[in-house]
């Protein structure tokens, strides 16, 4: 007979209910303080984010006129004469295109190589840590490295050469090449993680049918990680359109898209221009022209793009999870 068992009369049932939940009121004051601080921290961050979006939204509605999106900037001193930001808008689009087109092949093939081949192991580790280093390098350092590279006479065809023979080193190609380094780490990580999550039996099934490794990659693995690559591309695009340092150093900062050379298409890539980020910077009190209304309007458009890309990442992730029969992942980013 156990001493600890409650003494029950015959026929009486033991009371089994939900355990008494501990209420924060009974905790020690230190734990209560931490609970309060955690709530305050979490809600505080959300409030800051909300305040930024609401404030930019109000300013955007106040200053953004549809005409601004379709007029070219003009060199005016007064805000009413300085035109819109059609050229920076096109510049952002062109730069993003160049950057992503360069980044995708590089990132996807290194992710495939790391995840599917990865021999010799030490080399694979070196490649992975190089990408980690690229992710940790400040964009301003990448920008100034780009300037050093593209001012070499070897790369003279990629930008504008002055009459004295000095290579200018600033063009859409130069900036786009460096932008691809910014977009590389998120793209690589998304693709690699996707490939590593593909179950082994899918590869084994392809091998059993007599497919080679590379055919398996092309016909089975890459199609199944399409949504991961899409997520990576979206993250990369949002990095590129938000980056300012590379644009300031490598795009020349001209008001209009200035073409260089006579070959249509290529001359734009060799030319200089500006993007939304550099337009905001130049029109803020920190830049030359103090036109805060234009800066707010352009910043609102920029933030709208970033918001849209964020929603896109969410949707891709959710559709992917639904396709795989999982619930939406709780992770952030």
């Amino acid at each position: 007979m156990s001493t600890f068992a409650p003494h029950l009369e015959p026929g009486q049932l033991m009371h089994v209910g939900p355990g008494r939940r501990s209420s924060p009121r009974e905790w020690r004051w230190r734990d209560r303080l931490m609970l309060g601080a955690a709530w305050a921290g979490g809600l505080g961050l959300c409030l800051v984010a909300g305040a930024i979006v609401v404030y930019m939204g109000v300013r955007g509605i106040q200053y953004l006129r549809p005409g601004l999106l379709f007029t070219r900037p003009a060199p005016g001193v007064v805000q009413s004469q300085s035109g819109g930001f059609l050229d920076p808008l096109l510049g952002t689009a062109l730069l993003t295109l160049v950057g992503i087109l360069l980044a995708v092949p590089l990132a996807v093939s290194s992710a495939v190589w790391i995840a599917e081949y990865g021999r010799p192991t030490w080399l694979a580790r070196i490649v992975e840590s190089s990408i980690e280093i690229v992710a940790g390098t400040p964009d301003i350092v990448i920008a100034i490295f780009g300037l050093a590279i593209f001012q070499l006479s070897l790369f003279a065809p990629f930008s504008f050469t002055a009459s004295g023979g000095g290579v200018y080193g600033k063009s859409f190609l130069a900036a786009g090449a460096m932008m691809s380094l910014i977009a590389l780490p998120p793209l690589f990580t998304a693709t690699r993680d996707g490939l590593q999550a593909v179950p082994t039996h899918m590869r084994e099934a392809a091998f059993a049918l007599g497919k080679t490794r590379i055919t398996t990659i092309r016909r089975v693995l890459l199609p199944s990680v399409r949504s991961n690559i899409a997520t990576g591309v979206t993250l990369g695009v949002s990095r590129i359109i938000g980056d300012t340092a590379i644009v300031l150093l490598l795009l020349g900062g001209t008001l209009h898209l200035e073409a260089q050379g006579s070959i249509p298409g290529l001359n734009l890539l060799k030319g200089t221009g500006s993007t939304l980020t550099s337009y905001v910077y130049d029109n803020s009190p920190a830049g030359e022209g103090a036109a805060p209304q234009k800066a707010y309007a352009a910043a609102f458009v920029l933030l709208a793009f970033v918001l849209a890309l964020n929603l896109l990442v969410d949707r891709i992730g959710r559709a992917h999870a639904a396709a795989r029969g999982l619930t939406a992942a709780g992770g952030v980013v």
Partner: protein
Amino acid sequence: MLERLRRPWPDNRAERTLGAVSLLVCVLVLAMVVFVALRAWPTFSHQGLSWLGSGGDVDKQIGNMVGTSVHPPPSAFFVRAWPIVYGSLLTTAMAVPVALALALLASVFIVELAPAGLRRIAIPVIRLLASVPSVIYGLIGVLVLVPFVGNDLISASQKASVQNVVELTGAGLAVAVAILTVMITPIMVALICEALTSVPRSWREGALALGVNPVRAVSAVTLKAIRPAIVAAVVLATARALGEAVMIQMVSGSRSFAPKPIDGWTFFFEPLRTLASAIIDNSEGLGAPAVRSTVYAFAFLLLFSAFVLSAAGYLIKLPLRKYHVQG
């Protein structure tokens, strides 16, 4: 030609091609170190490491370089960049601890404490905070926070007390650190949240079953298990804080002044310049060889710190990996 590409590749050639493309990334990193170091070499060779010391006004020293000839004498490279290095260290050292505390609290809130409905809102909102471009932070800083600090927080007597040395406009340490904290916190929250969700549920439930309250369970069990991820988050956030250029350039008053803690409260309102913002500020003067060498020396310092940080993170994480939780 196209027909040849469409045919299935031999496996060997595919492996070699993909490997070669991957090696391109290593080559780029190597090229980055070599090129930045080569261009920074004159500054190092003429002054050793003494250019990191203090003495004189950096802005004037760099200004003097602009006029020098194409083949400048060694004396033209003279610079004492301590105020700029100090600015970088100061902003980072002030922003990272605050951001870490905030990020730990916020991620514990999101993963463990928040009701499900609130969590569904909080995750995308904080993710948005991480992806707001730095130029927008800078714009809000320079158009909203700087005038507010300049007009309402700095008293006339504070302005008068330092008016012979530096002008207080509101742009300076306080605004720069505040915005920097907001910028790096979501990066840490992302990494810490991911690690928190990967801790096995049973560990926390075990602690709860022993009668510990939820807050205690998180701090005693879950946070200990994810220490490698916390280190990784701190490393990444420090790298981001050291390298932030555009926002700092916009809100920090753009003067190479070293804020002095003995000035009391005024300390927080004094302008400063960091390594990264100095690069942006001097990017117009890169035509002059002496300026170019100095600016690349700044960039080399940033690159070096990125390498040191990633090595330090790796070394700190090694002994912490015993729980096999990711990070």
